[in-house]
């Protein structure tokens, strides 16, 4: 079979799964939907492997294959095809998306089993995977926009999955609105591309763009900046990031799949996909890199102080995506996509472990209340530590190789790009610290009451309280269901976490500096025309970078050990001494407040002005004046209306007689 045939199969399985689960949702009980959903995604993953193997058999310059199912829209000068592009970049994305999705589906079959919305959940989740695969396989900008909007909807539906929870519905709307801002940017970029080049097709656009635009031409910079609006909204980069922490209101598997491993990396994929355009607009690429760096640092500082377990991981996700955005913007495509892959593994793992711990805590997500789970939940504790080590970039873990490669590349480009190397290493230190803030808080110390109970073999079942507001939950619709589930007691969860733990440890081997360069060789099919792609740091600088990374990572973990294990009072003292900074970080750099002040309030003001002045005075004024004028004229002529029928008849006759007389006089 050809690679494109496998590409279509990758799309068909999740779509079929969605439709099947959606149609059968009323009839099936138990775990049927979960098995269908997991099976569909597993088949999709198998097809991705098929496409991968076929592509490996092709020579490097013949690894970009397109296939068209039918013409989507044909009009004067416009020819949009429902076509896919199967090339190394999209195949890597397909492998990551469908692979991680399979494991998360498997995890969900156990985690969500007592939820009344179990079937609905899997229908949404399959739809999400379909949309995401459509996004990465799309062969033109129109289909990309379609996939882009679909994942936005899937994200909305899954964040608001527990729709009786007001905070969850509000978070869903916030995510949707911000994503729509991104959609608008993307659509406008597509229009501009079409206006300039007359095509939507990736390969045509990328081929013609260098001949059409001067480097740093105003139009190409505008196109790239509009693409960036889309990318940043989807990937939660400053200042469009505020929806991501709130999105943690959704079920934990959703956080793991959509808001850590796959959807939020769509922006990174977009920049990598559109790299021929970004290389023509270095200004836009530099802006993207600086915003990525800012996000990286801001999110890492917030992750130091937030106390909600899932929100710490969410800020960590933002921060790690910042790394990827920096990477693909400065031209380190291999490193960016490589980090995207390893991040998908260890971040999904961290979320799964967090879900298991939240299960043991009966829904409570505050890490201040967690401690000492190492005996009660040995497996979860182990996977959590593995995830944290990979996130912290501990030597020889997957995150170690992928993260450092970005900084080494930045240093290799030199000049201004040193900022990204230095900033990246600063953030790497903070990352190690907050990763083990979670690790040490949850795993070590005296067992908290829930952990003690669990050691006796009893899983805590507290009241169902909203983790964000502490209010009592309406449990009529499912969540949190009758029982909680932890990995120690659910084989499905354990398998998924085990596989991801192994991948988090060993995934680095495919791209070891100087030894293997599997990712780089494979991706060459997509990036062979790029000059930046062929900048490869020397082995010496790569090893030096790894050494710096290792030192910073161990130092960060050591500091976390001091703060949370050796001298537990240290953080409290620090907090009392630097109350201002702590407050500032606790309020997440006041981004929500700033958006409220800069966008929300002015819009409301303008709305009130329109209501009070334009509507009440101008529009109503015009209407009232018109009515008044007509009434006045009416009063003047009403006297003629006597209601006396014979008088009307006389007027008609008299009028005609007068007319006839007039014509007689005129004609004679």
């Amino acid at each position, binding site marked *: 079979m050809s690679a494109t045939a496998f590409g279509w199969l990758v799309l068909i399985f999740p779509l079929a799964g969605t439709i099947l689960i959606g149609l059968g949702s009323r009839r099936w009980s138990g775990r049927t939907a979960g098995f269908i959903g997991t099976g569909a995604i597993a088949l999709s993953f198998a097809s991705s492997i098929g496409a991968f193997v076929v592509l490996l058999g092709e020579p490097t310059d013949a690894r970009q294959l397109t296939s068209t199912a039918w013409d989507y829209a044909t009009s004067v000068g416009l020819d949009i095809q429902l076509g896919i592009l199967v090339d190394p970049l999209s195949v890597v994305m397909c492998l990551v998306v469908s692979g991680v999705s399979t494991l998360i589906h498997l995890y969900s079959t156990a985690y969500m089993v007592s939820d009344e919305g179990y079937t609905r959940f899997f229908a949404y989740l399959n739809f999400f995977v379909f949309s995401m695969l459509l996004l990465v396989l799309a062969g033109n900008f129109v289909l990309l926009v379609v996939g882009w909007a679909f994942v936005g909807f899937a994200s909305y539906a899954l964040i608001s999955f527990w729709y009786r929870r007001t905070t969850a519905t509000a978070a869903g709307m916030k995510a949707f609105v911000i994503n729509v801002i991104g959609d608008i940017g993307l659509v406008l970029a597509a229009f501009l591309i079409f206006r300039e080049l007359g095509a939507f097709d990736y390969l045509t656009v990328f081929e013609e763009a260098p001949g059409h635009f001067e480097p740093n031409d105003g139009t190409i910079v505008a196109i790239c900046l509009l693409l960036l609006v889309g990318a940043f909204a989807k990937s939660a980069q400053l200042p469009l990031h505020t929806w991501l922490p709130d999105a943690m209101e959704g079920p934990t598997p959703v956080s793991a799949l959509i808001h850590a491993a796959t959807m939020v990396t769509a922006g990174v994929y977009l920049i990598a996909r559109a790299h021929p355009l970004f290389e023509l607009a270095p200004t836009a690429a530099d802006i993207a890199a600086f915003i990525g760096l800012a996000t990286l640092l801001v999110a890492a500082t917030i992750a130091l102080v937030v106390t909600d377990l899932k929100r710490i991981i969410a800020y960590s996700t933002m921060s790690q995506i910042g790394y990827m955005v920096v990477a693909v913007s400065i031209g380190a495509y291999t490193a960016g996509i490589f980090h995207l892959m390893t991040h998908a593994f260890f971040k999904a793992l961290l979320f799964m472990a967090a879900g298991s711990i939240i299960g043991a805590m009966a829904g409570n997500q505050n890490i201040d209340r967690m401690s000492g789970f190492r005996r009660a939940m040995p497996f979860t504790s182990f996977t959590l530590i593995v995830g944290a080590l990979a996130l912290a970039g501990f030597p020889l873990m997957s995150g170690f190789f992928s993260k450092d490669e970005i900084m080494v590349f930045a240093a290799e480009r030199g000049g201004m790009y040193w900022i990204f190397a230095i900033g990246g290493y600063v953030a790497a230190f903070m990352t190690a610290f907050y990763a083990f803030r979670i690790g040490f808080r949850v795993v070590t110390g005296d067992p908290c009451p829930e952990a003690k109970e669990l050691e006796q073999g009893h899983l805590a079942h507290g009241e169902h309280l909203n983790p964000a507001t502490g209010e009592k939950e309406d449990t009529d619709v499912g969540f949190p269901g009758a029982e909680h589930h932890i990995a120690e007691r659910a084989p499905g969860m354990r398998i998924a976490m085990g596989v991801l733990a192994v991948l988090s440890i060993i995934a680095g081997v495919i791209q070891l500096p100087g030894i293997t360069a599997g990712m780089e060789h494979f991706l060459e099919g997509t990036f062979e025309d790029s000059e930046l792609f062929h900048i490869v740091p020397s082995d010496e600088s790569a090893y030096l970078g790894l050494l710096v990374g290792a030192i910073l990572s161990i130092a960060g973990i050591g500091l976390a050990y001091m703060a949370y294990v050796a001298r537990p009072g240290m953080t409290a003292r620090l907090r009392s001494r630097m109350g201002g900074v702590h407050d500032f970080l606790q309020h997440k750099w006041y981004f929500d407040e700033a958006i409220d002040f800069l966008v929300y309030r002015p819009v409301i003001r303008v709305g009130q002005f329109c209501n009070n002045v334009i509507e009440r005075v101008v529009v109503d004024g015009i209407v009232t004046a018109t009515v008044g004028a007509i009434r006045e004229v009416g009063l003047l*002529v009403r*006297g003629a209306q*006597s*209601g*006396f*029928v*014979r008088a009307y008849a006389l007027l008609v006759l008299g009028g005609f007689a007068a007319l006839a007389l007039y014509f007689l006089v005129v004609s004679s």
Partner: protein
Amino acid sequence: MAVEWYLVLSALLFATGAAGVLLRRSPLVVLLCLELMLNAGNLALLAFARSTGTQDGHVFALVVMVVAACEVVVGLGLIVAMFRRRLPLNVDEFRGLKG
């Protein structure tokens, strides 16, 4: 015969009808007078048609007759309805159009 005689007859008929419409108060008589006016018009049309030898007047007169028939149907229906409701059969008392 010259066309003038027909026109004089037509004018007399029209004047009679118009006077009836203006002076009589019974809706039934008003309706009859309206018919008289229409037929006066028809007579003039036919006279001219005959004198010029064209068909246009004939066709137009036929159309007027159809309209007149329709008008009688509606008008008589209205008068019968008024009678049934015991409304006064006097056009001067229907003054709902007064402004």
